C-alpha cells in the first residue's frame, strides 16, 4: 500500500474538526475503538483502521468532504457495507473512510418504465423487497445480497447465480449520480436505455471506488418470471458434469442458473443444511429454468435428456417452490458450510473457458497436494466462474501465506488457460499484484490514464487494482511534434 503521508497524520485533529463542520453530529467517527469495525471488509486477512470514518447523509456533504480532502491532499476510501471479498474497501492509515451506509432511501419506483432510483446504501435485496409486491425484482443476486449495498455492487460490478441469463450489475444499471474527487456532482445515464456521448457509465460500473463516489443509482427492474424450476443432478465425474453444461448450452438453452459443486463442497454443504444432496457423486449440478410453466416443463425435459446422455446418476426435479429452494439451500450456504469444516477458508474467483474445467481441476488438485491445503469448489458453471475455497487455519504459522500463494497460483492458472483473475469479486488489494499476469504494461497504463481523467492526484482509493502507481504526469508523457502541442490547456494522460 502507499506509505502513509506523515504530514496528513500530523494534522489529524485539525482534519477531524474540519470534517465535523461538514458532517455534524454522529457522522464523524474518530475514537479508536469505534474505528475497529471498519478496519477490514469481507477479506479479513487484511486489516487497517482508517484515520477517521465519515458517514455523510447528503450528496452535498459528500461533495464537500471530497472537495476538502482534495484541497488538503487527503486520500479517501469509499465504503458500502464492507462485504468486498477483494479488499476493495480496505482503509488506509492516512485516509478518510467515506461510509455510504446512511444513504438508505429508495427515491423512486417506476413500474411503467421498469426502473428504480435508489441511494447507494440500499441493500441489493431491499430493492427486490421494495418491488416484489408488484411482481418485480432486481436481477443480479450476489449471495451477500441481504448485506451488500447497491453502491458496492456498482463499484464491483457484482454478479450472482442468475447472471448467465440476466447479466451482471453493469447490464442492469441505467444511470448513476457520481461525485468526483473534485467535489463535482455529475450524472451518467438516466432513465433512457442509452445516454449521449462516451459510455462513461460503463466504466464507472466496476471501477472499484477509484473514479468517484456513487450517490444515486438507477436500476432496471424486471417482471418476475411466472415459475422457476430446478434440477438437481449428480455425476460420476467432473468431466461428465462439465460436458452436460456444454451440451445444454449447445442445445440453445440458457438456464436462469447453472451451478456446479465438487465432492468436498457437496459434503460440506450437506453436512451443514441436510437437504438430501447425494454423497456418492463426484459433481453436482443445479440447473434452474424460469419462465412460463410450459417453457419450464419443456426445457426441464430437454435438460434431463442431456444429463442422462452424460451419465447422470441421480436426477431430481423440484416439485414445488419449497423443494426448489431446498436444492439451492446447500449451494447458497456453501461458504459458511465450508467455514464449518475448516477454521478458515479463502475464496477465489477466476473465470476460465468452460472446456478447460477438467484440466484446471486436475492441476488444482496437484497444487492442493503441493501446498498441503484442501480445496472445495463451487462453480458458476454456466459462465465458467470458479470459486475454489482454499481451506486453511490462520492460527497455524505460515498457513495463511501458503493459502494466499496457492490462491495466486490458481488465478495464474486461470489466466494461462485463457481466463481471467476475477469474474465478479473485483481486483481490490487482493489481486492487484497479479494484474501483470493478465495485462501488459501498456494495457495497464491505458487503464490508469482513465483514472487520471477522473482523479489526477490519485487520492481516491489508492493502492487498489493497479500494481504500480504511476504519477499521471508520467503517464501523459508524449513527444511534441514540430513544437506544437494541440489542446495546450488540457492535461494529457
Amino acid at each position: 500500500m502507499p506509505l502513509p503521508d506523515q504530514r496528513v497524520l500530523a494534522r489529524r485533529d485539525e482534519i477531524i474538526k474540519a470534517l465535523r463542520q461538514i458532517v455534524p453530529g454522529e457522522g464523524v467517527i474518530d475514537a479508536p475503538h469505534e474505528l475497529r469495525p471498519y478496519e477490514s471488509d469481507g477479506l479479513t486477512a487484511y486489516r487497517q483502521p482508517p484515520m477517521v470514518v465519515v458517514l455523510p447523509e447528503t450528496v452535498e456533504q459528500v461533495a464537500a468532504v471530497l472537495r476538502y480532502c482534495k484541497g488538503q491532499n487527503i486520500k479517501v476510501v469509499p465504503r458500502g457495507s464492507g462485504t468486498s471479498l477483494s479488499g476493495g474497501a480496505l482503509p488506509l492509515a492516512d485516509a478518510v473512510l467515506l461510509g455510504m451506509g446512511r444513504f438508505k432511501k429508495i427515491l423512486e419506483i417506476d413500474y411503467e418504465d421498469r426502473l428504480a432510483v435508489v441511494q447507494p446504501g440500499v441493500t441489493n435485496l431491499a430493492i427486490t423487497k421494495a418491488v416484489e409486491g408488484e411482481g418485480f425484482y432486481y436481477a443480479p443476486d450476489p449471495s451477500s445480497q441481504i448485506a451488500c449495498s447497491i453502491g458496492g455492487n456498482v463499484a464491483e460490478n457484482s454478479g450472482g447465480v442468475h447472471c448467465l441469463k440476466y447479466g451482471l450489475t453493469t447490464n442492469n444499471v441505467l444511470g448513476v449520480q457520481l461525485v468526483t474527487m473534485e467535489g463535482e456532482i455529475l450524472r451518467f445515464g438516466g432513465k433512457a436505455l442509452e445516454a449521449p456521448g462516451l459510455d462513461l457509465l460503463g466504466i464507472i460500473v466496476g471501477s472499484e471506488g477509484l473514479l468517484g463516489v456513487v450517490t444515486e443509482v438507477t436500476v432496471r427492474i424486471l417482471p418476475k418470471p411466472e415459475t422457476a424450476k430446478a434440477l438437481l443432478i449428480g455425476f460420476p465425474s467432473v468431466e461428465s458434469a462439465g460436458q452436460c453444461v456444454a451440451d445444454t448450452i449447445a442445445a440453445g438453452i440458457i438456464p436462469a442458473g447453472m451451478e456446479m459443486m465438487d465432492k468436498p463442497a457437496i459434503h460440506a454443504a450437506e453436512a451443514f443444511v441436510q437437504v438430501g444432496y447425494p454423497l456418492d457423486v463426484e459433481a453436482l449440478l443445479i440447473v434452474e429454468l424460469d419462465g412460463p410453466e410450459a417453457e419450464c416443463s419443456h426445457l426441464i425435459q430437454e435438460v434431463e435428456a442431456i444429463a442422462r446422455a452424460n451419465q447422470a446418476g441421480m436426477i431430481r426435479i423440484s416439485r414445488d417452490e419449497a423443494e426448489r429452494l431446498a436444492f439451492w439451500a446447500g449451494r447458497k450456504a456453501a461458504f459458511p458450510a465450508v467455514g464449518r469444516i475448516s477454521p478458515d477458508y479463502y475464496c477465489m474467483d477466476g473465470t476460465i473457458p468452460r472446456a478447460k474445467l477438467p484440466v484446471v481441476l486436475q492441476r488444482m488438485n496437484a497444487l492442493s497436494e503441493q501446498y498441503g491445503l484442501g480445496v472445495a469448489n463451487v462453480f458458476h458453471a454456466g459462465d465458467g466462474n470458479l470459486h475454489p475455497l482454499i481451506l486453511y487455519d490462520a492460527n497455524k504459522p505460515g498457513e495463511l501465506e501458503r493459502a494466499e500463494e496457492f490462491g495466486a497460483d490458481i488465478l495464474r492458472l486461470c489466466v494461462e488457460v485463457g481466463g481471467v483473475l476475477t469474474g465478479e469479486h473485483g481486483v481490490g488489494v487482493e489481486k492487484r499484484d497479479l494484474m501483470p499476469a493478465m495485462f501488459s504494461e501498456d494495457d495497464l497504463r491505458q487503464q490508469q490514464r482513465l483514472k487520471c481523467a477522473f482523479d489526477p492526484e490519485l487520492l481516491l482509493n489508492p493502492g487498489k487494482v493497479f500494481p504500480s502507481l504511476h504519477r499521471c504526469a508520467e503517464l501523459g508523457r508524449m513527444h511534441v511534434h514540430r513544437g506544437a502541442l494541440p489542446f495546450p490547456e488540457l492535461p494529457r494522460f
Partner: protein
Amino acid sequence: MTPQNTKEVCEIIGQALADGEKLEIVGGGTRAQIGAPREIPTLCLAGLSGILEYDPAELVLTARAGTPLAEIEAAVAERGQGLAFEPYGAAGSTIGGVLAAGVAGARRVSAGGARDHLLGFEAVSGRGEIFRAGAKVVKNVTGYDLPKLLCGSWGRLAALTEVTLKVLPRAPERVTLCWRGLADEPAFALMRAALRAPCDVAAAAHLPGEATMLRLDGVGPSIAARRDYLGAALAAYGPPEALDDAAPLWARVQGGAGLTTEAPLWRLSLPPRAALGAIAPLLAAGGAYLADWAGGLIWLALEGREALIREAADAAGGHATLMRAPAEIRARIPALHPQALGVEALSRRVRRGFDPMGIFETNRFLDEADAD
C-alpha cells in the same frame, strides 16, 4: 490507407503523429454521413478481416475488427447462434464499425446493446500503442470495463483491431403479435404493459396509424403460453394478429428506414413513458416518427427545428442524435447531443487519455473548438 494487420495500424498512426496529421478511422465507411462534412485521410480497418476463434459452447467469438458484420452473422447462424443485440448495417458494414457506432436493433430493449456484448478487444490508441482490455470469457470484472467505453466511441479513442463478442443461442421460433390501427396513446400504453408482463417480450415497436407489434422469441410451448397470457392481459386493445413473417414491418422500423428521406433523420433515446409527450410538439411541427424499444427509441423525420428537438429530448430526460441531413445542416448542427458541461469536460479528458494529440479529432462532432 488500408492496413492489413495491427502492426501496420500502429505504423500509420505513428506516422500521422510524427507528421502532426489527423486520421479518420473507418470500417465499411457506411456511416460517413453522420457528423459534419470533412476531408480527412482515412484509416480503414476493413483490411483486418476474418474470424479468429469461434467456440459455440463457450458463447464467444473473436474476429478482426474489419470483418464484415454479414460474415459474422452467417458464421454464428450456422451454429444456431446469433448476436442478441441484433446489430444491422449496410452491405459493407464491419463489426468494428457496428460496435464503434453502438448499433443495436429491436431486441436492444430486452437483450441489451452493443455495449452488453463486447467482451474484450485489442486496439491501437492515438499514441500508436497496442493495448488490450476485457477478455475472451463471458464473465470478467478484471480492470476497468474498457469494452463498454469503446462501444459508441465513434472512432475517437482508438482503432479497434480485434474484438471478442458474446454470442447466444438463437431462439428456434419467433412470432410477432400485431395490433392494427391503434392510436398513439393506447399503442404506447400497450407496449409498456407488455413489457411489464412476465412474458419476456423480445421487442416492441409502433408504426403510427398502421401497426403495433410485439415480438416473442423462444421455444414453441413457451411462445404459445406467453401469447395466451398477453392476449388476456392486453384484451382491452382487441385481439392481435399473429404474423409469421413480420420481417418487412420490423425492417421499416430499423434505422428509421420507413420514414421519408426528404427530411433530416433524428434518433431520440427517451424514457418510454415520457416519449409521446416529448415528441408531441415535434409532430405538431410536421414531424413523422417510428417507435422502437417499447417507445424508448423514436426515429423522427423533421425539417428544421433542431433546437426544439434537442430541447424536447432534454426535457424528457433523453437525447437526440442527428443521423442524416444535408451537408449544410450537418456543418452547423452537432450530430451528438450536447452534454452537461462537467460530463463534457470529463469526456474530453478521457479522450485525451487515449488520444493525447487529438489525431482522431476530426471536428466531425463540432465539439473540439481547437481542432481544425
